[in-house]
């Protein structure tokens, strides 16, 4: 008896010539274990099992094989770093999709999304990947990167800073709010935070960012250091994510605060603006406040509840934030 050549989706039977061939017994038993039998097949199976009751064990065997296959084929969840990269890709795609109404078709956008993704990989991957894509990344950064970031999404519009880069801010706000939520609410996915000792942070900053950034005086703002690690903020520069927590001395205890620091000036931050840019993001009933500013060659993104952000902004000696813009859902 031959294996079916095709399968009638409606009946679960194979198609052959004028009618479906009956399933071979082995296939019939497997299909029974998979709950893929048609009514006709079920009748055949029942008849077969009346003659060969021992084959019932085969069905059970196939079921258990499936269960154990599921166990044997499990893999660990996607690494946190990969999740960040996907979020960064989403942010890039969101930014670039704003072009689609102009002179850019979908295929070009796809290439650009992939290009930005590759740039990020070349920037963040070490070892073999870095060596292999170094030259390509440099070319992409010089040729494609400049035109993408500066001409397309990075340049403030003539209307002024209040409207400049709104699409970009929208995507970035999503990225920071999502990443902040994820890292504070899903502890098992926080393996990226490799430095939990405050005294070790200068070395980590120097290694990742190439310099030690000017961290706001969070202790004056009633916050304690929790940990930090490298992350993948959308854009070219390498970045870190610090987690802080309020200690109750200045505002309610236990509020999580994220501070992302990225090399270079993020395109969302206007060049002529020293005050922090406020990006708001509301989703699923939760509201995140995001302050973004640029200082000393680094871009800073503070994410938390409004009160905590305000405390840290004041402690950092930053001016009043300019008009909010970003993502409201």
């Amino acid at each position, binding site marked *: 008896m031959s294996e079916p*050549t095709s399968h009638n*989706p409606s009946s679960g039977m194979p198609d052959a010539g004028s009618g479906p061939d009956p399933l071979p017994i082995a296939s019939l038993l*497997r299909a029974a274990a998979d709950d893929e039998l048609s009514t006709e097949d079920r009748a055949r199976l029942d008849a077969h099992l009346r003659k060969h009751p021992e084959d019932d064990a085969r069905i059970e065997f196939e079921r*258990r094989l499936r269960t154990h296959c599921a166990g*044997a084929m499990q*893999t660990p969840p996607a690494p946190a770093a990969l999740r960040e*990269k996907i*979020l960064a*890709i989403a942010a890039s795609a969101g930014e670039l999709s704003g072009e689609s109404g102009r002179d850019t078709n979908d295929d070009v956008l796809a290439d650009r999304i992939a290009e930005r993704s590759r740039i990020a990989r070349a920037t963040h991957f070490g070892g073999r990947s870095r060596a292999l894509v170094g030259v390509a990344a440099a070319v992409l950064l010089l040729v494609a990167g400049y035109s993408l970031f500066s001409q397309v999404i990075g340049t403030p519009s003539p209307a002024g800073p209040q409207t400049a880069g709104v699409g970009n801010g929208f995507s970035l706000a999503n990225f920071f709010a999502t990443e902040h939520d994820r890292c504070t609410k899903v502890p098992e996915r926080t393996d990226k935070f490799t430095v939990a000792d405050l005294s070790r942070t200068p070395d980590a900053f120097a290694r990742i960012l190439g310099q030690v950034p000017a961290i706001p005086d969070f202790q004056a703002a009633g916050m304690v250091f929790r940990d930090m690690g490298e992350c993948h903020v959308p854009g070219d520069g390498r970045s870190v994510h610090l987690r802080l927590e309020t200690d109750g001395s200045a505002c309610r205890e236990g509020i999580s605060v994220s501070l992302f620091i990225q090399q270079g000036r993020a395109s969302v931050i206007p060049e002529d603006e020293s005050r922090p840019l406020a990006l708001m993001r509301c989703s699923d009933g939760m509201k995140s406040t995001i302050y973004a500013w640029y200082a000393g060659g680094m871009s800073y993104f503070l994410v938390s509840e409004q009160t905590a952000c305000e405390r840290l902004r004041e402690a950092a000696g930053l001016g009043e934030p300019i008009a909010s813009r970003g993502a409201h859902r």
Partner: protein
Amino acid sequence: MERAAFERLALEHLDAVYRLAMHLTRNPEEADDLVQDVYARAFRPKAIATFEDRSGDGSGGMRAWLFTITHNVFYTRIKKKAREPQAVGEFFAESTDGPLPDEPPPAWDRAGFDWEHVDAGLKKAVEDLKPEFREVLLMWGVDGLKYREIAEILGVPIGTVMSRLHRARKTLADRLTSDPEAVENLGLDGLSGKNNGESGVHR
């Protein structure tokens, strides 16, 4: 569908996409790279619109859609790089017409089958399967997809899915019962000599 909602839904399936990528590439770095390419394609405006169309008529869920992209990107890469031309040729030339042996069901006493000690051997047996068989086995075993869903994802007839599943499961069953030590551990002693020509399958 709104982009943000689409992104959230797509990210819910990241672990499943990563698992498929891992089983296809068997290399964490390549899997990482593959997943990024998959999402870069998934997040295109036109792709989102396409997904809306598919979900509109109930023909495709997000996970199946992402699996389709993963499958296509993986095999496109293989074709481009010509890494495994024989395997690819075999994959694309695979016929569903050829008869497969209708091996008789094994008739050992499954009450003595020690499943607790099976998993390590099973894992190795799965790893030794060709990617196209692992892929089908994963969607069937881990993701619980129906034959028709797998066929749609892979773009092949249901018969091909059944054929691959048949071969993959038979290979696993053979491996579980062909190793003398495993047979002893699994309490399958006394079955040798009853083999009717189907390796590891007894009646």
